[in-house]
């Protein structure tokens, strides 16, 4: 069964959308196979604050059979540059949802970082044959520190221990 993120990533690539996987789901990518991962219910995609990119991201999401939401309402149509400019100006979060509770947040905010700086040092991994660009683990952790929400504190409190355990494993020392 294809993971819905692989399907979305394929469409984003087809539409030349620059994005970065960030947040807990991004940090999980650095865990090796079989290693415990942090539970998160969504995937955070960091986008540059560019209306054209956003329109292409919306199109890619639709082609991946995802529904787009802004708050509790479906994102209005037409999903064009005019709407994208307003969404960016309001720094509104657009969420893409699909089957099996698949949930992706399209965001322009990565606390403490601008998109281009993170993009320059991105790491591209492969998921089911599809390239998925992710932020550096260091940037993800630094951003969690900068965001400082309770859920970020919980992540940071346990993440260092998880890395130490990972490096203690004989296969990874």
């Amino acid at each position, binding site marked *: 069964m294809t*993971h819905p993120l692989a399907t979305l990533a394929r469409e984003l690539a087809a539409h030349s959308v620059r994005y970065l996987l960030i947040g807990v789901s991004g940090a*999980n*990518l650095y865990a090796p196979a079989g290693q415990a991962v942090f539970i998160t*219910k969504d995937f955070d995609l960091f986008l540059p604050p560019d209306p054209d990119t956003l329109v292409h991201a919306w199109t890619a999401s639709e082609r991946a059979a995802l529904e787009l939401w802004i708050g509790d309402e479906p994102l209005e149509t037409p999903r064009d540059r005019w709407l994208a400019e307003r969404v960016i100006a309001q720094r509104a979060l657009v969420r893409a949802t699909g089957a*099996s509770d698949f949930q992706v947040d399209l965001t322009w905010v990565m606390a403490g970082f601008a998109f281009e700086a993170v993009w320059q040092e991105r*790491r591209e991994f*492969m*998921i089911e044959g599809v390239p998925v660009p992710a932020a550096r683990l260091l940037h993800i952790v630094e951003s969690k520190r900068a965001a400082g929400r309770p859920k970020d*504190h919980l992540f940071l409190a346990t993440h260092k221990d998880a890395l130490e355990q990972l490096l203690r494993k004989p296969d990874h020392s």
Partner: protein
Amino acid sequence: MADELERADRLFEEAQAFARTYRFEMTDEYRALIERVEAMPQNQPGADKSGPWRGSAADHRAFVDASSGPRRM
């Protein structure tokens, strides 16, 4: 079952209280740890992450299933 739910609720509340007061400091040790993990062969550009990804998705489904179960009021 009720005891387990009570225990889960208590742990959740403790975690919330901890999160409200925890203050994280980025240390050189933590930074070095992260750099070591980033430098691992399996974390180099182009590495296939399909394996751990499936594990994560399965964990997510288990979490969703557990969250949607009956909850004691």
